[in-house]
């Protein structure tokens, strides 16, 4: 096995046992990036020099027995995380020349924990999109088949981990932007509870929905990563003063008697038959392990996209109002099509005479969606659904139909509206099928739980992985 293919857990073990150095590990990732980035377009900035220096420093610390949780682990970050002295674009030409003066809180925490930053990852500009194609720097390709989308908006973050260019990566999830690409690229993606991870220094998209999460190769790694990023931050008032548990502690707990809800609204006609089959197989695995499977209903699910496409563009229009080219960045004429569309939509729904009919109404429907989940979690401990109603689609397929693109997030947006955590876990590959010209592409399930229930999600996800080891790798 090559070093860049290791998980966080395996890499930490190897580093501490001196089987290899942080420099070996980092160079192995940088070699893979150099080899594959021309094909996949996952990285916008590659920090060769900085990463090599950081690796050498990590090796010094490892030599004296430093046990920092991510010491020597090479990761990469969505280009929406501010990184001091490293260009940060949000994949938009508006910020083509922007060099942040400080690190986001989560970047500082990762660096303090010993992580090595390999570079900055491509995404839909301003995190607006479900396919990665709204990037002003060209789309990211799916490592499983380069004609297909890796999912968005954290497209480069998913592709980077799937293609073993980084051991893990940082992303953001406002309506599904971590869970969807994780499912499309056969990696694990966590959208934490709203406020669990600080948003300070993350370029804001929709402030009442933005969640800061990550991509890893295993559920266990996802827990180790959240151990570092979670917690209160005085620079983000939405981070509550709740203790951060050791998220890796309960991974092996028995799931016997855990009540898992299956919401009927997610298993309707619009769901691809083969994805439904795979999801049901995963659910029956939990049943065999002694979990109790319970049919539930989340009656307002069908209104989630409509509510989301009022709330989110409204907040986008407000957050993107700050880009005036005075303190940093280029003029507003540099905004791409999707950003303009959302600014216009949000400005309209917030404008005088329309606020009550649109924004206020959507915020009320949001309450009903949140209540659906609160009611459901009285009956069940967790909920399992597919991540996406369809397999990854071909690049270009939905780019001229914004509404169709928006509907791709139909199974993921409710978690953001309700503020609950969601873990996207790979459940297999579908295809290839010669009859329908379907390429072999990954599928994921989504495990949802009440606010601040990440421990339970990791427990369920880890138990699934133990019983169903994920051995698929892209052929690159």
């Amino acid at each position: 096995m090559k070093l860049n293919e290791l998980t966080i857990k395996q890499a930490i073990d190897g580093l501490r046992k001196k089987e290899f150095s942080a420099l070996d590990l980092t160079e192995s990732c940088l070699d893979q990036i150099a080899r594959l980035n021309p094909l996949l377009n996952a990285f916008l900035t590659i920090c060769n020099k900085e990463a090599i220096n950081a690796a050498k420093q990590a090796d010094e610390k490892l030599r004296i027995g430093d046990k920092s949780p991510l010491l020597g682990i090479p990761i990469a970050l969505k280009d929406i995380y501010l990184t001091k002295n490293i260009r940060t674009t949000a994949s938009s030409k508006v910020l083509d020349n922007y060099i942040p003066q400080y690190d986001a809180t989560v970047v500082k925490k990762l660096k303090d924990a010993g992580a090595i930053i390999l570079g900055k990852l491509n995404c839909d500009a301003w995190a607006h999109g479900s396919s990665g194609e709204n990037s002003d720097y060209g789309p990211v390709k799916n490592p499983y088949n380069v004609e297909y989308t890796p999912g968005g908006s954290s497209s480069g973050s998913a592709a980077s981990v799937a293609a073993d260019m980084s051991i893990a990566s940082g992303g953001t999830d406002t309506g599904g932007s971590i869970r969807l690409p994780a499912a499309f690229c056969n990696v694990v993606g966590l959208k934490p509870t709203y406020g669990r991870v600080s948003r300070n220094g993350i370029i804001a998209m929709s402030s009442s929905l933005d969640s800061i999460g990550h991509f890893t190769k295993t559920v266990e790694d996802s827990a180790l990563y959240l151990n570092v990023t979670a917690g209160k931050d005085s620079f983000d008032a939405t981070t509550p003063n709740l203790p951060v548990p050791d998220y890796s502690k309960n991974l092996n707990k028995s799931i016997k008697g855990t009540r898992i809800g299956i919401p009927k609204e997610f298993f309707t006609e619009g769901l691809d038959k083969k994805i439904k089959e795979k999801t049901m197989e995963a659910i029956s695995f939990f049943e065999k392990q002694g979990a109790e499977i319970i049919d539930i209903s989340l009656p307002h699910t069908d209104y989630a996209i409509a509510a989301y496409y009022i709330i989110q563009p409204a907040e986008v229009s407000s957050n993107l109002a700050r880009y005036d080219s005075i303190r940093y960045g280029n003029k507003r004429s540099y905004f791409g099509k999707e950003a303009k569309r959302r600014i216009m939509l949000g400005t309209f729904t917030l404008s005088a005479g329309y606020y009550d009919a649109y924004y206020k109404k959507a915020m009320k429907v949001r309450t009903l969606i949140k209540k659906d989940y609160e009611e459901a979690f009285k009956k069940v401990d967790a909920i399992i659904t597919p991540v996406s109603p369809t397999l990854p689609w071909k690049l270009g397929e939905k780019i001229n139909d914004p509404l169709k693109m928006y509907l791709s997030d139909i199974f993921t947006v409710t978690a953001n509206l309700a503020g609950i955590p969601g873990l996207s876990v790979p459940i297999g590959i579908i295809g290839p099928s010669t009859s329908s010209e379907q390429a072999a592409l990954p599928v994921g399930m989504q495990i949802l739980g009440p606010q601040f229930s990440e421990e339970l999600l990791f427990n369920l996800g880890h138990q699934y992985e133990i019983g169903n080891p994920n051995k698929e790798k892209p052929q690159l």
Partner: protein
Amino acid sequence: MKIDILKVAKLANLKLKDNEENELEGQLTSILGYIEKLKEVDTEGVEETSQVTNLENIEREDFTLPSLEQVTALSNANKKHEGFFEVEAILE
């Protein structure tokens, strides 16, 4: 639903090209058409949710912390003048 695209663009401080006006009008009308389905939902007496984890009035002691130095704060400015951001005149 008829949207006054030029008025909205002005409010949003965006300059649109001619073809963008028509394209946006069509797309926004279609999106707003879809959003209309919220009218089916009875929200009588339902409160709005704007803070989803129920936090309120987060306070901290009022003390100063180090902040960016002037030269750093100005490092991304397109135009600066004697330690200030330079902006276009807003009064003629």
